[in-house]
């Protein structure tokens, strides 16, 4: 298929349809309104259904019902709306219902602002809901990436029978870029028929979608089975990319989403000046690519983590490299994007040995 110039929001919607998703339940919130708006127009055209839910609480529970009945379904929202889905998310994971949830992150906390941010990293990766559960968290850095990853998201959800999150800063939804929606692609995981779904028990025993297990031994078994599943995701689903890491470098930058692109621009600019800096980009934020990052960090003298938050992923970066080398943090907040110049300045200062202006050793005390 030819490349189209599309808004990220629309590309996400179109890619979901190409991945055979025919259902969307959602509630408006800036800066992702173009996703439900697009779905409200497109889904009826392809025989699908769009429902504007009364709230994000309701939307996430509609997902729960639809996913439980075997449908491919997704919703999207932005930070405050995602917080309202935390109970349902825990239920989805507990009852093993595959759905896809997109968070187009805006600045917080609270009502905050509507400009891009990445401050929901903790919520997404550490579990904003209650109980022992995990979700694969995908982080696109371009419109094409968003379209590709959401298609995989449906497959991953179905394969593991677990909710999958895709989180992007607001730019991912708002910008237009050339994108190719890969029609007729193969699923990224082998998929079994959904014989567990609630579709009417004609000729079989009732199927039950449920997370209540009153017997503690049974619940413990369930918890351990889930844990084993999450362990297998940690083993099999780690995704990442690195740039300019073939040669030598003193600094390794770690960043995801749009800031990673900004960092890449900085890396290229520095390269032109003869300074080699590596870039490491986690694509799955959970499972986090601890081992690959550590490996890539071996050549460096310091890691610089760049985020649109006051420092969240930096904790995982620190965990990954442990005490092998110092981990610095540079972040912008409030909806402000980092610029290539800022990144260049940070790197230059680090190379000069100085603690760069505005940077701090993020994370733990």
């Amino acid at each position: 298929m030819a490349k189209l110039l599309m808004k990220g929001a629309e590309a996400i919607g179109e890619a979901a349809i190409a991945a055979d998703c025919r259902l969307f339940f959602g509630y408006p919130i800036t800066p992702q309104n173009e996703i439900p708006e697009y779905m409200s127009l497109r889904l009826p055209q392809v025989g699908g259904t769009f429902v504007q839910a009364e709230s994000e609480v309701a939307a996430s529970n509609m997902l729960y019902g639809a996913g439980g009945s075997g449908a491919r379904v997704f919703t999207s929202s932005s930070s405050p709306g995602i917080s309202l889905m935390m109970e349902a998310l825990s239920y989805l994971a507990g009852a093993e219902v595959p759905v896809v949830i997109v968070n187009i992150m805006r600045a917080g906390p609270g009502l905050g602002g509507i400009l891009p941010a990445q401050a929901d990293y903790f919520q997404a990766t550490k579990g904003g809901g209650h109980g022992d559960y995990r979700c694969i968290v995908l982080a696109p850095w371009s419109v094409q990436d968003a379209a590709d990853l959401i298609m995989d998201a449906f497959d991953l959800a179905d394969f593991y029978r677990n909710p999958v999150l895709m989180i992007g800063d607001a730019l991912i939804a708002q910008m237009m870029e050339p994108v190719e929606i890969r029609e007729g692609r193969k699923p990224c995981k082998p998929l079994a028929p959904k014989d567990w779904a609630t579709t009417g028990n004609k000729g079989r025993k009732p199927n039950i979608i449920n997370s209540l297990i009153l017997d503690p031994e049974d619940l413990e078994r369930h918890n351990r089975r889930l844990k084993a599943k999450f362990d297998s995701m940690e083993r099999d689903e780690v995704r990442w990319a690195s740039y300019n890491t073939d040669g030598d470098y003193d600094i390794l930058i770690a960043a995801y989403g749009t800031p990673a692109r900004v960092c890449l621009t900085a890396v290229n600019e520095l390269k032109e000046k003869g300074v080699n800096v590596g870039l490491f980009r986690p694509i799955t934020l959970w499972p986090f690519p601890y081992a690959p990052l550590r490996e890539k960090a071996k050549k460096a003298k310091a890691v610089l983590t760049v985020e649109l938050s006051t420092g969240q992923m930096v904790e995982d970066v620190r965990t990954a490299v442990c005490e092998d080398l110092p981990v610095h943090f540079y972040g912008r907040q409030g909806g402000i994007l980092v610029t290539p110049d800022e990144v260049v300045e940070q790197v230059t200062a680090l190379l000069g040995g100085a603690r760069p202006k505005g940077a701090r050793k993020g994370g733990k005390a």
Partner: protein
Amino acid sequence: MQNEMILAGFGGQGVLLIGKMLAYAGMKEGKEVSWLPSYGPEMRGGTCNCTVVVSDKPVGSPVVKSPNIMIALNRPSLDKFEPSVRPEGILLINSSLIDRKAERKDVDVLYVRANEVAIECGSPKAANMVALGALVGKTGMVGVESVKAAIAKTFEGKEKIIQLNYKALERGVAIGKGEAQ
């Protein structure tokens, strides 16, 4: 070569649209492009702008703080963005609506009577096309044919509008090339 542009004007002037057309034309020619609108709770009624990057290499930041090209279709936009244009950059001013000259001396300023020219072309709403044409004429960043393809796609089925826009675009191109105002 990487062109980083900010296109700004009033809400109804169609800056988002010409931004998209530029990006589309770039994409047609196999370039890397990105388009990003300003968005905010207060955008209504006020000014409106978008950022377009057209480049030979993958686009890093789709957000641009210092564009090398700036189109100002109204006065508030000029006031806001003039200082950010990179030295040696291009500043295109819609002199139909903007009653002042550029203050920057280190940029290449192009004054275009976009509204008047549009009226002359028979489509008063096509001032944005005139400006777009002027930019393309001046820089050659993308081919005129590619922009025409973008226009044709945007107004698919509306042959009359397409032709009017072509006309406005071409007048703009001529102005951009310094051939005529």
